[in-house]
């Protein structure tokens, strides 16, 4: 009797692990997850199982996001999925390190990044315009 219970527990554990790691075709995803992961629809079935699993965990948090966060999430999702595991890990470490900086300094860095972005956006325009004027 005891051996039977132990065997059942082992089978249940193994089944649960197998189920968690199994790849899920796009059509089998719940509608909420499909909505969250919509930008990845074309390449979903070719993604590794582990990556699919991680992305599905992210998708579970998607309904709790604000509108602008949802927009950012979907805009960045394809870029994120195209990174190598090492690149993603490095990004996580950088983000964790950045999170540990005091809030004031973090805000300063954010402002600097935004200013740099604004300059980068303006540069191609100003670079193209003189060339167009020249004969």
């Amino acid at each position: 009797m005891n051996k039977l219970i132990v065997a059942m527990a082992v089978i249940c554990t193994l089944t649960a692990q197998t189920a968690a790691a199994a790849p899920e075709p796009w059509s089998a995803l719940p509608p909420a997850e499909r909505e969250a992961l919509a930008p990845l629809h074309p390449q979903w079935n070719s993604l590794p199982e582990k990556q699919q699993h991680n992305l599905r965990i992210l998708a579970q948090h998607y309904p709790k996001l604000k509108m602008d966060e949802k927009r950012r999430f979907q805009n960045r999702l394809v870029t994120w999925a195209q990174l190598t595991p090492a690149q993603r890990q490095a990004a996580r470490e950088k983000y964790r390190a950045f999170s540990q900086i005091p809030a004031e300094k973090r805000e300063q860095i954010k402002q600097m990044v935004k200013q740099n972005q604004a300059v980068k956006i303006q540069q191609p325009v100003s670079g193209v315009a003189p060339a167009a004027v020249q004969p």
Partner: protein
Amino acid sequence: MKKYSQHINHQHIAKLLSSSTDQLDDSVLSALRQAHTVALDKQRVAEPVFSLSTIGHRAHHLMPHSTHQWIATSIILAAILIGAIGYWQDAQMPVDMEILTDDLPIEVFVDQHE
């Protein structure tokens, strides 16, 4: 009675008792001293002392005794652990999600040259 109690002088009573002990026999005095010493030795000191004996005794009753009880306890503990992990994972926003939703662009954290 009230008038009588007002006249009671405590010092006077103490003197009376002292003088009466002087009149006692040595054997009675020594017996009294011995009784006094024994009473002091046996006096219980009422200090609060933390003891694990009670907890241990109760814990013994709570511990599973048979194999079935051990299995049931293990299953309950495993269920609580899985539930706690699930709750923690749900409450904890994965760092990937924070990167993907932060107001800083993803390029700030991603090194494209790796």
